[in-house]
């Protein structure tokens, strides 16, 4: 009974979070149309003005509307993170699946390569790759992918190795199933939920790393709008015009927290199902 109650609470939480997430995501997706001002229109006479009716979040050092720039920058901050997670999820899963299922020397080679990537502190590796490739949104995404894929490869591998020993996989083999059939119809569907949880929790990490790269000047370049870059640009005015740094940080904070809570919620939902299965 208590399991059912927990499940209901999880469901309620999921609904609340999804509503909040859509409240953040929908406006940012439609950012361009909702922006009260042109995010790239500079107006030095209006520079560093506090929040007002015309500029709800104030203006930056070049007199650009901060709210408009936050909305405009959401695409770079959030959707690039989603794209990076999708890419590392796919690549990492494929590599882990190959290593785990094939075993032997293929596994050895792939896992040694993964270890080499993991040997570096991850953000330093991303900074190094981004520095090597040169600044820009696309290169920042590549460097984040280089930083994040190893988690998925290792997780996928361990899940495959665990699943390979399950009775139903052996049963499928004894039933004459081919390797391909076993991988795509048995193993992949059974490993997808833990992988999804990791991916959901990683969205916020990648968003933060992306902002971090931009903050360091390795990601999105001025004058394009991006939250990390806006925070970086606002630093000199922290004492005189704190809104320059406050609102982009708030946006970043809200999105990261929301994605994180949603990931947690997803994990609870899937874990609860797992418990139910063990009980039955």
């Amino acid at each position, binding site marked *: 009974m208590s399991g059912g109650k927990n499940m209901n609470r999880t469901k309620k939480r999921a609904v609340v979070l999804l509503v909040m997430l859509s409240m953040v995501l929908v406006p940012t997706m439609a950012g361009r149309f909702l922006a009260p001002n042109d995010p790239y229109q500079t107006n030095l006479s209006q520079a560093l003005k506090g929040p007002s009716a015309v500029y709800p979040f104030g203006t930056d050092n070049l007199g650009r509307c901060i709210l408009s720039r936050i909305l405009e920058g959401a695409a770079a901050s959030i959707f690039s993170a989603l794209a990076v997670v999708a890419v590392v999820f796919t690549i990492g899963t494929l590599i882990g699946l190959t290593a785990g299922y094939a075993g032997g020397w293929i596994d050895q080679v792939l896992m040694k390569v993964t270890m080499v990537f993991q040997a570096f502190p991850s953000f330093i590796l991303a900074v190094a790759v981004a520095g090597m490739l040169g600044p820009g949104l696309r290169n920042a995404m590549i460097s984040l992918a280089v930083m994040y894929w190893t988690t998925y490869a290792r997780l996928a591998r361990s899940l495959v190795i665990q699943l390979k020993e399950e*009775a139903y996989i052996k049963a499928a083999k004894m039933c004459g199933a081919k390797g391909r059939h076993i991988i795509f119809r048995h193993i992949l569907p059974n490993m997808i939920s833990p992988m999804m949880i990791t991916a959901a929790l990683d969205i916020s990490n990648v968003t933060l790393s992306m902002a971090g790269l931009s903050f360091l000047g390795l990601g999105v370049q001025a004058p394009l709008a991006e939250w990390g870059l806006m925070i970086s640009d606002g630093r000199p005015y922290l004492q005189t015009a704190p809104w320059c740094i406050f609102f982009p940080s708030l946006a970043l904070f809200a999105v990261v927290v929301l994605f994180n809570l949603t990931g947690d919620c997803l994990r609870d939902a899937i874990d609860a199902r797992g418990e139910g299965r063990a009980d039955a």
Partner: protein
Amino acid sequence: MLEVKNITVAYGSDTVVKDVSFAVKPGEVIGIVGESGSGKSTVLKSILGLLDSRGKVLGGEILLNGENLLGFTSGRMRQIRGKEIAMVFQHPELSLDPVWPVGRSFYESIRVHREITKKEAAVQGRKLLEALELGEPDKILSSYPFELSGGMCQRAAIAIAMANRPGILLADEPTSALDVTVQKQVIETMMQMRKEFSASILIVSHNIGVIAKMADFVGVMRRGQMVEWGTKEEVLYSPEHDYTKALIRAVPKMGGELPAAAEEVGHG
């Protein structure tokens, strides 16, 4: 139709099956009894060519309709598995994929061997479950393994194993994980299968009661060797080998006087 001739199997340097031979003829039920670790399951795995990675058949022949399965390529072996020789396992709810309803498992196990539409598979599944009198076939087909009881799961697994109409059904301790009342139903389902499709059954168990109910011929295995072989009557009612006698004595009897029985075991 299936003949195991003098096979010897080893895991690494441990020989776990020594020079075991027996034959399974059409429509017969063969039971192999023996304690855990006597090599009975290893024999079944060798027949399907799916020993664990360190296991190896060192000698002998496994003939299916006169052809030696040990010489088959892995591709050809795959066509045998499930199609000619199917298998059911000790833990039914673990041997069915947890993310598939029973109907999907049924469909997939047919599809491994031939093209079939989902609809057609569902029709066949329903027919098979009806023939086995398993109650509400549609409900079973749409249930996930964890929604079914262990006994129902095992009977569904038997139906799935028979989906491709194999000539031989291997059963590895099919009742050992179930409680006694359910064991009976599972045994009945298997016997019904044999009648319905005239399949042979090779059942391996440490439970003499199950073997006594089902088998026509019985083999007794101990430490990798077949110590006794014969018809059920010969082996179970007039055993020759001491080990068989001890094994039969160890079966608890209904209504037997417990202290006396305990004394007998103590002396024997």
